[in-house]
């Protein structure tokens, strides 16, 4: 039997110490394809399903670490075995408010492995369609296209005495949601974009002197080691692994690949083959991603049809949103997992808000806080704890660490191999990650 979330993640956390975790997951939604198709061409045989995961870790009533990942399932309806899964690692960040030694690197690796171990079918059971057809219920339902006035009339009808005009029966698995199946061992890709930033999720946390901020080069190394271990531990040996550092030549990029454990690392990206290909049809669109912003910019500039991949990467590096001279990189892998068995998460280990709105609402208790003082880390914890218990009737997941100091992996999920990591001494507040800082959300405190 597979270990559950707490046991598995506990294996990355220091022995006998207690942590709490909020694992938010959005309801899977049908989405437009992440790679843009030429105008007028629609691939009716595939479907893209997008799900967001947002993990927040707490220790001693403080928010300490956050991790955001999007999982896309590209479902091939005619040939489900050719479906693909893509993990886009969006953001990871620490607040720096923790007093015990913890390897954020180990933790990050474990979360990625946990996500990889989830059966892709987990995301396919109840999918919100891109466009709903309300069918015969159109006039009796209150939907997002019902006006205030219409809604009031419907509510009046529903409340009237002797009325048989009750709230329409909404069947989860009927017309309002989609449901699919695909094999569990489909091709899995991981994609991330590393760029240094003082903070990604925790506004003003860089003002905390205990938070250690990595420069662009170290950040890239940090991530590439995680992904390298992830391949060794989870993927089959024919996995494609690519690194691209916009603005650097082939040789200097390869130098970064020489000491890795996995032998098949190459220069390049997993999206787009030829440098002459148009970027707009090769580069994926991800949420809150500099590459995607740049694509939109090219379209607005009427340059989408004339910018090839080579120009795209060169110009991207020079974009204003990057600190000049800092290394940014694109890491991507693609392969089949070496798992015999896939995991079906227990409902108790995931909080699935009822709407995207509620998801953002809960998340903003974390990301809307200011972390220049410890009070922010405390306030966000209190708000999340109270909200989850009072409003969602749920609770945070408690995790007791089981990792011996200097030990290698304990409590492993399926066939983890020893990774022989040596980074355990890394200071608690390692600041890591991929993406740009968000504009601070309008939030008080």
């Amino acid at each position, binding site marked *: 039997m597979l270990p559950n979330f707490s046991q598995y993640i506990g294996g990355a956390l220091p022995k006998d110490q207690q942590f709490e975790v909020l694992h938010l997951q959005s*309801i899977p939604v049908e*989405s*437009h394809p*992440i790679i*843009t198709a*030429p*105008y007028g061409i629609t691939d009716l045989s595939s479907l893209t399903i997008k799900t967001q995961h947002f993990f927040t870790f707490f220790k001693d009533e403080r928010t300490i670490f956050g991790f955001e990942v999007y999982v896309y399932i590209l479902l091939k309806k005619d040939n489900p075995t050719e479906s693909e899964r893509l993990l886009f690692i969006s953001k990871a960040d620490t607040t720096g408010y923790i007093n015990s030694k913890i390897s954020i690197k180990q933790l990050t690796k474990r979360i990625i492995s946990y996500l990889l171990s989830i059966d892709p079918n987990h995301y396919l059971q109840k999918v*919100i369609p891109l466009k*709903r057809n309300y069918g015969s219920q159109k006039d009796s*339902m*209150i*939907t*997002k296209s*019902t006006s*205030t006035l219409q*809604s*009031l009339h419907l*509510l009046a009808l529903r409340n009237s005495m002797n009325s048989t005009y009750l*709230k*329409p029966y*909404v069947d989860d698995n009927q017309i*309002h949601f989609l449901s699919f199946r695909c094999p569990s061992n489909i091709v899995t890709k991981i994609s991330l974009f590393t760029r240094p930033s003082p903070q990604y999720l925790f506004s003003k946390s860089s003002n905390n002197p205990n938070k250690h901020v990595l420069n662009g080069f170290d950040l890239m190394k940090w991530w590439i080691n995680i992904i390298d271990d992830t391949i060794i531990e989870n993927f089959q040996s024919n996995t494609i692994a690519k690194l691209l550092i916009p603005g650097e030549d082939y040789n200097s990029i390869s130098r970064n690949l020489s000491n890795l454990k996995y032998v098949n690392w190459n220069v390049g990206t997993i999206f787009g083959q030829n440098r002459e290909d148009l970027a*707009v049809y090769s580069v994926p*669109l*991800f*949420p*809150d*991603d500099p590459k*995607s*912003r740049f*694509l*939109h910019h090219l*379209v607005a500039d009427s340059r*989408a*049809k004339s910018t090839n991949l080579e120009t795209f990467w060169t110009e991207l590096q020079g974009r204003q949103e990057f600190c000049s001279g800092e290394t940014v990189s694109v890491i991507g892998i693609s392969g089949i997992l070496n798992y015999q068995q896939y995991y079906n998460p227990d409902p108790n280990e995931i909080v699935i808000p*009822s*709407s*995207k*709105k*509620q998801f*953002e*609402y809960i998340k*903003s*208790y974390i990301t*809307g806080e200011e972390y220049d003082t410890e*009070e922010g880390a*405390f*306030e966000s914890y*209190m*708000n*999340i*704890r*109270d*909200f989850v218990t*009072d*409003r969602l009737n749920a609770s945070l997941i408690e995790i007791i660490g089981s990792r011996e100091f200097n030990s290698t992996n304990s409590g492993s999920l399926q066939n983890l191999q020893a990774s022989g990591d040596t980074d355990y001494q890394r200071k608690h507040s390692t600041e890591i990650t991929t993406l740009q800082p968000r504009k601070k959300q*309008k*939030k*008080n*405190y």
Partner: protein
Amino acid sequence: MSSNEEDPISKAFLGLAECEIETNKVEKKIEEYRLTQLKPIYTKRDEIISNIPGFWKIVLSQHNDFANYIRASDFKYIDNIESIKIDWINSNNFHIIIKFQGIRDDFPEQTIAKKCQRIIKEESDDLDEDIEEQIISEKSEIVWPKSYNHINPELIEDKTTKEGKKNYRMGMKSFFGWFKWTGLKPGKEFPHGDGLIQLIVDDLYPYCVRYYTEAQRDLADEASDSGSSEDEPLDLQE
């Protein structure tokens, strides 16, 4: 030409300045007209709303921004708000009147009027650009819930200890702290108290019915969300 400064262009600028002043006056007049027109409808609406149980509870838990102003633990009391009304003296002077239902052994039923005023901001060297208006308010007396005793600023005896300071601040940040907000002691009061006043008077109160109906959608996942993101499809059509 004579030596007076009446060249056509400077005359024009002076003319524009006059127009600006006139426009401001007219805008005020429109505001007052607006109020006169809407007040009777609001009065009627307030009366009707009082017949819908849990109306404000639903509106307030529906509203994203509102939650940003308060602590999650406050919802227990927010859920007990029976009514919110605005009593305008004129467009710049108004009371926000909030009626709470009681919670046995914790919190008394009470109706609190918070007096608010929009004023023209004093000249300041601040970097703020176009903010010319400012909101101030008067402290209102509200009985805090017993469960908040440990963070009730009036009950904290030693505000100099670390624990005391922390609890004091927690109290000030709670919804009950907002009733004490005046706008005159920046940094020491409920944070963004003016924002919360504005939210109530310019958004929550006028559009409460819309928020209520939005919360009644039959498919919960359709709760509206205005968030946009860069992964939206590219608009390649030409």
